[in-house]
């Protein structure tokens, strides 16, 4: 693919270069360009969709159902996803099993950014979809899509193991139908939606705004006061 097509956010940023690994197959598709992509892409997608390796990321109740789905009764290995990897560098998707709190959010963001592209997220359980039963707790992030992009929403508290299998099949369908070249053109975001500070549990953008305001106030008290009025 010509370099001109790829611009803006779809370019891998420098600080993330070491976290992004493209497979040889993808590099091949890229080299062959738009012409052969419709032919090769489905084959590559079919291969990829049948071996989606999840990260062992479980915070609470849903993690137990995620364990159950790996065991003999439900047996996620029928769909090629039994290889739970302990490190994000070897995984393809995160199943955010369990409530994400303000204290846990920075860790999840780091894990998400360490996943190699292409990466997928299944928001599992009511807590990570909307905040669920804890939807007014002071310490719970009300929906994981406020911090990382989500592909599949899987409600339930906790969802049954069959639900996880269903979500996985939906994700496989999504992987199969998309074209890698298209995905690149869509300027898919590499990074998290917003960052959270570990020490204060607040979004980083708020803290930056606050610091800017305070600096301005210290430099020129009168002017800032007038502006705020």
């Amino acid at each position, binding site marked *: 693919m010509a370099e001109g097509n790829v611009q803006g956010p779809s370019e891998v940023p420098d600080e993330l270069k070491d976290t992004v690994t493209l497979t040889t197959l993808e590099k091949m598709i890229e080299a062959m360009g738009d012409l052969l992509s419709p032919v090769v892409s489905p084959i590559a997608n079919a291969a990829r969709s049948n071996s989606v390796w999840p990260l*062992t*990321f*479980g*915070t*609470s*109740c849903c*993690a*137990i*159902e995620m*364990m*159950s789905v*790996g*065991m*003999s*009764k439900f047996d996620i290995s029928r769909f090629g996803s039994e290889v*739970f990897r*302990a490190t994000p560098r070897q995984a393809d998707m995160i199943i955010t099993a*369990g*409530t994400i*709190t303000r*204290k*846990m959010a920075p*860790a999840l963001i780091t*894990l998400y950014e360490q996943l190699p592209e292409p990466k997928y997220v299944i928001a599992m359980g009511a807590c990570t979809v909307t905040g669920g*039963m*804890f939807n*007014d*707790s*002071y*310490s*719970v992030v009300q929906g994981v899509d406020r911090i990382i992009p989500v592909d599949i929403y899987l409600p339930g*508290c*906790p969802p*049954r193991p069959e639900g996880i299998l269903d979500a996985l099949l939906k994700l496989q369908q999504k992987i199969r139908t998309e074209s890698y070249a298209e995905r690149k053109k869509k300027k898919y975001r590499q990074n998290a939606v917003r960052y959270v500070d570990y020490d204060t549990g607040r979004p980083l953008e708020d803290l930056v705004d606050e610091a800017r305001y305070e600096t301005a106030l210290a430099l020129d008290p009168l002017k800032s006061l007038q502006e705020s009025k």
Partner: protein
Amino acid sequence: MATDTEVDLTPRLKTDEMLINMGPQHPATHGVLRLILTLDGEIVRHTEPILGHLHRAQEWQGQNRTWFQYQALIDRVDYLSGMFTSWAMARAAEVVDGCEVPERAEYLRVMVSEMNRITSHLLWLGTYLIDLGAMFGFPFYPFREREKLLELFEEIAGQRMMFNYIRIGGVMRNPKDAWLSKLKKFTEEFPDRVDEYEAIVTENPIFLKRTKGVGILRKELGMDYGITGPSIRASGVNIDLRRTKPYSVYPKLKFDVPVNDRDGDTFDRYIFRIREMRQSNEIIKQCLDMLPQGEISGKKQIAGLRVKAGEGFAAVESPRGTLGCYIISNGSDRAYRIKWRNPSFCNLSILPELLKNHPIADVMAIFGSIDVILPDVDR
């Protein structure tokens, strides 16, 4: 001139301590615990656990939800033994309210919570073996029985894990005869299954090498930290609320509380949990034989459920220890203050003492053996 014996053999190399961060995302911490380990070579000198990565404000929810709403939430305090958290709050509210619980409801409570104790220990057994390195092979066995029990739970409560079955004043549904006979069938075959696990694990030389003599918990130290449950019974303290502060219909049932006669190590804690599973199975059998007919709830289960004004503390013996609930009620439809006394929270506080001077390879063996559930720690 110095002879060989007088030569100073102290090492001249200066060693530095090293800080290692473990978690919050770690496959073996059973959730999201962060440990900051100070290592001298391979030996752990100091541990600082950092909690709260799963702090979901359960106590705050207790003040802001009505009793009826909150009953559905508390299964999430300890998701592996939801029956016990429901029971602890139901008991505390009943003590404050003074309402009667029908006998059939008490028998059903004992039955389902002993079933829940078995599922909890089964899951602990599977994951503990994973922690010790038995990757994906052994855990299939305990999960097989666990699924059978979860099916029974689903039939009676409508959910596999979050039951909301034990309510203030009684239980929610009456089991059908078919359910009881299914449970009876399970109790008959379960001891054989435990034999199966023991055949694989108990005399396995690798397992013995990893667990014998590791993480010895002294009795006095455990009592100083307020440890409860199988962990302290394996160290020789006889505290099992089912016997020492009897509640419900436990006085009518025949069972022994096994207590160790020495300071327990990791292996003892394993073997006491196995014994508890067999014991729970016996209790379920007795309950099935003794189950009386009658009402199942002494309080109307309506959305405007109220608890009389007053304060009280009640506790039940959960798979992890004393699970207590301290309630202050002002007679309205919400609690004024609910405080949870979680066994995992108290048991975890001893971790820095247990890990001291153990190699880092034993960290997971010791941490797994005290059976901590993170939402129970963080609430």
